[in-house]
């Protein structure tokens, strides 16, 4: 039990002084005086007077002494004094008084016991409640700590997720570049193939030229008759099929040069697209960037997709050079993926004096309105699991944001999706 609550032991002894009040006893004793007694008093078991009322005339002789019982134990005595002739009248009064005192005493004890047990029970209930409250406070503290940790953990996870997302965006850019590289490699391989083949042929031709020259050198030393030399040389000339070789070698050289030029043009386009030589911002023409992207995708597009260009002159834009390429590459690849068996891609650009508007529309199934809010979210894809990363349009979103522009999707005329990019121009 805590120290600041009242504590009772049920059954603790009570003194008659604790149970009877002056206001209970004195009126009774005074009543006895009024009835003719000279003195009425209550004494403890040691004889000491606890309460008393006496007339000034003196107390006279003891007429009656009656025990007052508390729980079966005589704890006090009622004593009545008076003149001897009053005995007959006062003795019944004494009996009456003791009954009255006994009743008051018993009721008082009952009240005290009730109060004590009530207090004990209330105290113990209160202590139980205090203990329960402490337990609840502890559990609340535990949950608060958990909640605080949870917030921290959520923050950590969010940061982790952001890092992973940035990583994936980078990967997607690399994947796009990889696809592009495959296409470009094919473009380069083709001319490289016939240049190599031509060089092999030229190698054989050169060997024949050498053989012919060797023949001349040897036969000139022999100092043969001229006619004979001419005849033999003619035979050798034909043997080595030099008339055919002479006719072919010019074509071979011209073809090879053209091929080499094609390769260097592709490399220049690639460099231009990637802006690999530029650091920081540069001034670009978005139409030119669009064309360059198409060139790089020519292998994927050739014979497969129909490209419709409606390009109007645009002001130059200052930006990180590789951003437009990223946007166009991803949007055109997206159109090729979703546009079905015979894709038709319409590219249009215009400038309204403030903003450049570029639209890339396809003839595919279009994008349902319900999905339009999600398509630019990272990892969102309508392709089967494993087929798409869901990062392509997220890359577009990020790049457009860096150009301080917006990208939205609308219905293309006649069905299909129309991606509209709006970029503020005239920033110098």
């Amino acid at each position, binding site marked *: 039990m805590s120290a600041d609550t009242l504590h*009772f*032991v*049920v*059954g*603790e*002894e009570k003194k008659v002084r604790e149970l009877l009040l002056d206001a209970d006893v004195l009126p009774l004793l005074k009543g006895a005086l009024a009835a003719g007694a000279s003195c009425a008093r209550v004494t403890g078991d040691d004889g000491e007077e606890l309460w008393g009322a006496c007339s000034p005339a003196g107390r006279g002789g003891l007429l009656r002494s009656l025990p007052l*019982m*508390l*729980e*079966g*134990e005589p704890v006090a005595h009622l004593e009545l004094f008076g003149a001897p002739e009053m005995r007959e009248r006062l003795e019944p009064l004494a009996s009456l008084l003791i009954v009255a005192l006994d009743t008051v005493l*018993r009721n008082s*004890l*009952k009240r005290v*016991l*009730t109060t004590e*047990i*009530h207090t*004990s*029970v209330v105290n*113990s*209930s209160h202590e139980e409640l205090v203990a329960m409250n402490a337990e609840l406070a502890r559990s609340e503290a535990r949950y608060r700590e958990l909640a605080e940790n949870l917030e921290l953990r959520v923050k950590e996870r969010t940061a982790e997720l952001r890092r992973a997302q940035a990583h994936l965006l980078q990967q997607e850019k690399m994947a796009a570049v990889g696809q592009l590289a495959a296409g470009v490699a094919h473009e380069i391989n083709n001319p490289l193939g016939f240049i190599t083949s031509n060089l092999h042929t030229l190698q054989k031709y050169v060997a024949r030229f050498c053989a012919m020259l060797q023949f001349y050198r040897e036969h000139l030393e022999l100092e043969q008759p001229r006619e004979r030399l001419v005849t033999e040389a003619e035979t050798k000339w034909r043997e080595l099929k030099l008339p055919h070789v002479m006719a072919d070698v010019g074509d071979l050289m011209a073809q090879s040069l053209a091929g080499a030029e094609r390769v260097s043009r592709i490399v220049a386009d690639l460099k231009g697209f990637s802006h690999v030589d530029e650091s920081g911002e540069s001034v670009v023409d978005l139409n030119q960037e669009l064309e360059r992207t198409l060139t790089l995708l020519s292998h994927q597009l050739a014979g497969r997709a129909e490209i419709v260009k409606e390009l109007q002159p645009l002001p130059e834009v200052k930006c990180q050079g590789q951003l437009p390429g990223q946007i166009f590459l991803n949007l055109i690849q997206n159109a090729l993926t979703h546009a079905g068996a015979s894709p038709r891609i319409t590219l249009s650009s215009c400038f309204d004096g403030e903003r450049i508007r570029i639209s890339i529309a396809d003839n595919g199934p279009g994008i349902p309105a319900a999905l339009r809010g999600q398509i630019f979210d990272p990892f969102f894809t309508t392709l089967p699991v494993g087929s798409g990363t869901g990062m392509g349009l997220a890359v577009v979103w990020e790049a457009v944001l860096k150009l301080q522009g917006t990208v939205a999707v609308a219905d293309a005329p006649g069905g299909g999706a129309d991606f509209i990019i709006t970029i503020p121009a005239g920033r110098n």
Partner: protein
Amino acid sequence: MIEFDEKERRMVLKLVYYGPALSGKTTNLLQLHDLLTRQGRGELMVLDTSGDRTIYFDLLPFFLTAPSGLKIKVKVYTVPGQVCHDATRKAVLQRADGVVFVADSNRAEAGSNVASFDNLERNLSLVGLDIDSIPLVIQFNKRDLPAAVPEEEIRTTWDPTGIPVVLASALNGHGVAETFALVAGLVYDRIDARFALAAKHGLTRERFVAKLTSLKEEP
């Protein structure tokens, strides 16, 4: 023991009638009150407060004086049987010197008996008393009921525990004084061992029990 005051030469003992609700604890006290002589016995005090929480017990006090002058008061209590009054039961059990467990012989009440006895055991330990050493008597009350559990069965269950069992019908006054005498004797043995009631105070076991349980003379 509620109190022992060497200077005042005073000893206050506590006996508690425990048991399930409606097993006849108060009836036991009422019968004791009616059966025993008025000499040295106080009035039965029945406390019942109704209201938010009913807190309730009965008290029958006894008073005797040993030849040495040692005043001994024995307060006999009942506890409320209802499960919800556990706090009152604990408060009343504090410093008890002996316990009478009033069980209900009605077979249907066997479960209540067991639950109440478990409650007694737990509450005794909570107030620092040991059920194995405290004077304890079991009274199987309501033997007059037709559905009463047979005595054979009760003996088989309780005799091995060594706890004395009294069969009673408190309503008819049977077994009530016997139960009280039995627990009074056991309490005497325990107190005598510690306070030398016989050797120092000249109070023998017989006298102690007789003082508490002397029946009224038949009129």
